[in-house]
């Protein structure tokens, strides 16, 4: 029974994949869809190779790198959706690179202060990249939540939901990373459970946000808007004259 608990995230990811396919969300969020599909494939592969230590070792780390890379790409997709109104501004294009750069700097700093206990440069690079993406995910999530009161954005929209799932898991993951280096490996099992619960909650959040259809009609072109406004003004003028 206790072993089955570790496969809850895979089951939830499968459910999320079905929800995304049913809602045709692969059209609106192709990168996030790719992340979820990759997650299902990666977790299934890990499950299959679990009893073979050497292949499992490489598959674990390669899929971990895949998770970090696709997580970053999904994040960029989310930011692009939210900032579509200011896409033409030169500074809007710098936001994601700046956040990612901040994550990389913090990750390298963390690497210097508390080196992770992994062997080999490749694994070190994967762990460093993972921590950098975690920092970026928390920063993006916190920034997007700040948009809600500052710009009157709706909180219940899919880009924010995606950021929220990543933000929740990354916050817990960063906390685990901090505390593991402080307390060592004595609480490894507890941190494993915390990580599992956090990821499951993240997937549940994604399932909830994508369960509600959120269609947005394509924006009309400026000529259509100007024509509609002109018609409206003529209508108002006509009504005034009638009184």
């Amino acid at each position, binding site marked *: 029974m206790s072993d089955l608990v570790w496969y809850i995230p895979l089951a939830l990811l499968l459910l999320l994949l079905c929800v995304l396919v049913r809602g045709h969300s692969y059209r609106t969020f192709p990168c996030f869809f790719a992340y979820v599909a990759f997650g299902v494939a990666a977790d299934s592969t890990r499950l299959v190779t679990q009893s073979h230590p050497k292949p499992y070792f490489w598959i674990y780390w390669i899929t971990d790198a895949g998770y970090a890379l696709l997580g970053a790409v999904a994040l960029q997709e989310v930011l692009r959706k939210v900032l579509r109104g200011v896409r033409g501004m030169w500074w809007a294009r710098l936001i994601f690179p700046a956040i990612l750069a901040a994550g990389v700097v913090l990750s390298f700093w963390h690497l210097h202060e508390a080196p992770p206990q992994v062997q080999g440069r490749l694994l070190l690079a994967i762990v460093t990249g993972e921590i950098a993406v975690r*920092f970026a995910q*928390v920063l993006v999530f916190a920034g997007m939540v700040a948009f809600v009161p500052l710009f009157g954005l709706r909180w219940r929209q899919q880009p924010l939901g995606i950021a929220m799932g990543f933000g929740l898991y990354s916050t817990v993951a960063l906390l685990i990373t901090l505390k593991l280096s402080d307390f060592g490996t004595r609480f490894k099992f507890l941190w494993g459970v915390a990580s599992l619960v956090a990821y499951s909650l993240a997937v549940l959040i994604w399932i909830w946000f994508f369960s509600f259809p*959120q269609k947005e009609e394509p924006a009309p072109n400026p000529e259509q808007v100007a024509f509609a*406004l002109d018609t409206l003004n003529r209508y108002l003028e006509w009504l005034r004259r009638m009184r």
Partner: protein
Amino acid sequence: MFLAISTWVIVTSGVLALLYILRCACARTPKFNLNDLVHFLYPVDLSLLDSLLDPAADFALRWSLNPRAFRREQRRRMRLYRELLRRMAHNSIILADFGNALFGEDERPACACELEGAVIKVRLYTGFARLRLRLWLLLSLDALGVVPTPQLANLRKAADLDGRKAYDELKIAAAAAFARLQPAELDALTRNL
């Protein structure tokens, strides 16, 4: 130590963001009456706004007044423009709140998305412009003769956004989004914005 502080700040911001979303999820959305929208808006005198941002007006004042009088007059105009910016920012948030209440969460029409985009642009412009004005008024470097008194016309653009154009787009988006208002209210809406 600085790394630990930075990491804890980021983790705390993540936790606070989660708590805020939880609060939003649990809070009941206030029921806005669309006919009350006009009463929440502050009138923005666009002709005054244009005259404050007019570079010719800045130039004429600089030539006709001595430096001390020009500085005094320019600070008065800055305070006026700061008030206009405050009203523009307030109106944009009110329109966003009413828009979110009117259109709900699902199947949003294009006019709702246009309104959301226009609100973001106006909030960004007013935020950056108010920051610059606050610095100009606070630091007063021109009093020491270190720098010339700033031109208000320089505030036409902030964060690469044209403020007047952004506010006009907000008016158009609001008129389109709230077209279901009674004609008298719609007229009042466009006049008050």
